[in-house]
């Protein structure tokens, strides 16, 4: 174990996962996508939110995995769940009916109104990169009471115009969610490797509200494909604690282990 990274330094991705975990209050019912959302939700459950109810679209409600699952189908999710339901039931009785507090999503691209692309890069009919597609994301973002998005911030991900709109955040702006019949309140927070963004209550446009330690405003502006709105009082978050880092790294090191 000589190659352990030092506990007093951390990567931007680790900062992003820790910041996302901190955003989840204890007791919430959270619809979790695989990848960073699952990592962050399990980190939160181990550290600050032991009563977080994890819902995986594979059918596990109230999953309590001790190790991080590689996929949403890992056996431990079903074995530790309060209840296991079929996929049609998950998307109707539980999600569509509005029983989930927070939808926790990633994406390949995001725009200023927190709309998401996870379908293609390039044109739909002749894509340069074919991404996995919608999965559960459009309805998770539509029906959960609020949505938290986790996505690294760069000119490639924070784009002026999505290559494809897989999932509606605030559509084209104020009033669009209601017009489209989306029942949840939409994105409340975007966590990146540079800081936090929240939608402006009037314009719905994502606004930088917090920077991670050591990140400057110009960095965030340079990593955004539009003129980034910035809050008048941007705060600076705290670095990951030793406990947060240690727990995060243990989770990552044992991802998908079945023994």
């Amino acid at each position, binding site marked *: 174990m000589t190659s352990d990274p030092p506990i007093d330094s951390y990567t931007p991705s680790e900062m992003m996962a820790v910041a996302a975990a901190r955003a989840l209050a204890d007791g919430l019912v959270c619809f979790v996508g695989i990848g960073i959302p699952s990592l962050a939700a399990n980190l939160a459950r181990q550290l600050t939110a032991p009563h977080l109810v994890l819902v995986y679209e*594979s059918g596990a409600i109230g999953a309590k995995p001790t190790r991080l699952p*590689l996929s949403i189908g890992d056996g431990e999710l*079903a074995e530790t769940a309060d209840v296991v339901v*079929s996929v049609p039931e998950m998307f*109707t009785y539980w999600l569509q009916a509005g029983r989930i507090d927070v939808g926790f999503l990633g994406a390949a691209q995001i725009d200023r109104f927190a709309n998401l692309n996870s*379908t293609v890069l390039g044109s739909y009919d002749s894509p340069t990169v074919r991404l996995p597609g*919608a999965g559960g994301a459009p309805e998770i973002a539509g029906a959960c009471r609020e949505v938290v998005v986790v996505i690294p911030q760069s000119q490639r991900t924070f784009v002026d115009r999505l290559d494809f709109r897989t999932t509606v955040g605030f559509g084209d702006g104020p009033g669009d969610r209601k017009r489209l*019949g989306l029942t949840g309140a939409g994105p409340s927070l975007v966590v990146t490797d540079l800081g936090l963004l929240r939608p402006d209550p009037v314009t719905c446009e994502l606004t930088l509200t917090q920077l991670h330690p050591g990140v400057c405003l110009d960095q965030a502006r340079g990593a955004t494909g539009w003129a980034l709105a910035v809050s008048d009082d941007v705060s600076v978050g705290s670095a990951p604690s030793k406990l947060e880092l240690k727990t995060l790294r243990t989770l990552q090191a044992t991802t998908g282990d079945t023994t």
Partner: protein
Amino acid sequence: MATHLSLADAVSAYVRDGDVVAMEGFTHLIPFAAGHEIIRQQRRDLTLVRLTPDVIFDQLIGMGCARKLLFSWGGNPGVGSLHRLRDAVERGWPNPLELEEHSHAGLSARYVAGASGLPFGVLRAYQGTGLEGRSDSMASVRCPFTGEDVAAVAALNPDVAVIHAQQSDREGNVQLWGLTGVQKEAVLAARASIVTVEELVEELVQQPGGVVLPHWVVGAVVHVPGGSHPSYAAGFSERDNDFYLQWDRVSRDRSTFTSWMKTHVLDVPSPIRPST
């Protein structure tokens, strides 16, 4: 009425070139062995259907079995891209692949409508997304009671559904448990079905959360222990996560993929029905 068959006979009898074939398994109980038999029998021009096409669909697509894919999320879960799917979509290898995509909610509503004998299903979906209008199996419909506009999706009735389950008895009653996905709906929506099972038992004992499909809605039952590997069958095996991680390397390159398929699928004899 369910018939016990060998895997080769079941695929030969139930899967024809050009069929719409649903092979379900939402991250569990994925019918790999049946998929391999379809590859060995060189079925062509299939429309493959699944909410979450993963490695078995990557193999079917890379081996030229599919003309079209109807799906909602295509990837190697927790690992990344399906390289054979991407090669077919991005570069037309080994043949172009038509895509029709929904969300999970929409595609599962299509199965439910199909299983229910309804012409369409309703849900809140698609409005404002780029998916809207890309498929003639989705539309908008006005609620006759409230006036609200909701999404309508066409019923899906595949020619054949293929699933893997834990148990069957002699009559061909089938039971599956754990994460049961959308398999029940797929079998009930399809015109015919093949169910591969881990074990044959004298009598089915109802499991907690177990889904039982009576023999009179099942077509062929095939005893294939381990038939979902590298996926798994709760109570029998664990997901082979290392395989999924390694598939990323195997599938990246056309020739590595082709030689892997020859060694591990084409040159492997179809499983013989274990004696009972």
